[in-house]
């Protein structure tokens, strides 16, 4: 199954927060969505990493999502490697959605890799303390 599922309640609430490059105000960190799709790009970069992924929507259209992540130094302690994702990988991402609007973007919380392994990211503090 592809697409985006909104997760109700607080079961998947994670105290994740944005890294130090900018304020994460546009994301609602009290909510999570599950996004299933195919990796088009995984960028392992400072000051942020990100995942781009194609997601099939209910209407048959495909949209390319941007999943914003903390820098590699916050990912490595949670088991990430530069090679953890490749284009074509089918993944399921848990992310904080935008507060408003319908742009295909989210703030990373965790990913389930094709082999079933789940990777998260270490908390950064800038957003959390705002």
């Amino acid at each position, binding site marked *: 199954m592809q697409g985006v599922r909104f997760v109700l309640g607080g079961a998947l609430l994670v105290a994740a927060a944005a890294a130090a490059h*900018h*304020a994460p105000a546009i994301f609602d960190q009290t909510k999570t969505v599950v996004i299933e799709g195919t990796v088009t790009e995984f*960028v392992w970069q400072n*000051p942020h990493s*990100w995942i781009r992924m194609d997601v099939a929507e209910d209407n048959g259209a495909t949209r390319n999502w941007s999943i914003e992540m903390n820098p590699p*130094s916050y990912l490595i302690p949670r088991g990430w490697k530069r090679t953890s994702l490749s284009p074509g990988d089918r993944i399921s991402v848990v992310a904080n959605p935008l507060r408003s609007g319908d742009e295909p973007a989210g703030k990373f919380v965790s990913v389930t890799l094709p082999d079933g392994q789940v990777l998260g990211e270490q908390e950064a503090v800038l957003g959390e303390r705002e």
Partner: protein
Amino acid sequence: MPIAWAQSDDEIWTPPLGALAPENLAKERPAPPFDLTGTWFVDLDATPSSWRFGPPYPEFTAAAQAHIDASQAATAEGKVYRDDIGQCWPAGVPLIMTRVWPMAMIQLPTAVYMISGFMNSLRVIYTDGREHTPDDYVIPSFNGESIGRWEGDALVVDTRSFVDHHHWMDQGGMSIPAGGQLRIIERIRLNRETDQLEIEYTMTDPENWAGEWKHTKYFNRVNDVDIAEVSCLPNLNENMLSTGSEALIN
């Protein structure tokens, strides 16, 4: 026809001897009370305001308050008010000190070189006895021009000559502008028992607040981290909506 030069050579300002000039490094100076060399990270648990420099805040001018009000309204709408750092403008002093990236400090007899992990921002505190660059020649910058002097158990740093645009004392719902008249005095001490840096900030900027804004920050050594290359590349804002223009109120 000969060129009529505006000034003769003896009227032109001569910059001081470079901080890394062997002749400058070799000058005899009293031994400093401590060595800042190391990698440091702001102690976010030491003060309730964590990376921010308030509360408490000073009394803001109407002009500064207008920015604060606008940023609070933007935050309430899930938007970001003038996120210049997200748009790759330098964070500048003082925010660069607490921008939740480690900061490498290298102390030499003539200067302390500070390199933030955040955008590799360079800050140099000159301790070789030089004066501030005259107003006619100084180049305003986001980190300002820092001149330090050892006083007892402290390094006292006077930082001036900041830019008057795209520079903020805070952001994220408290967008307090930093103006060209900003001046920051830092008293830097090393607590030998805790191996912790204490920096007492006294900040004035009559364009934006009344009187002295005081705040103290603490920094811990992080010995398992080195500074890496961090640049604000064009692909960042192309791929991250939270820093792209659609998320902003400018």
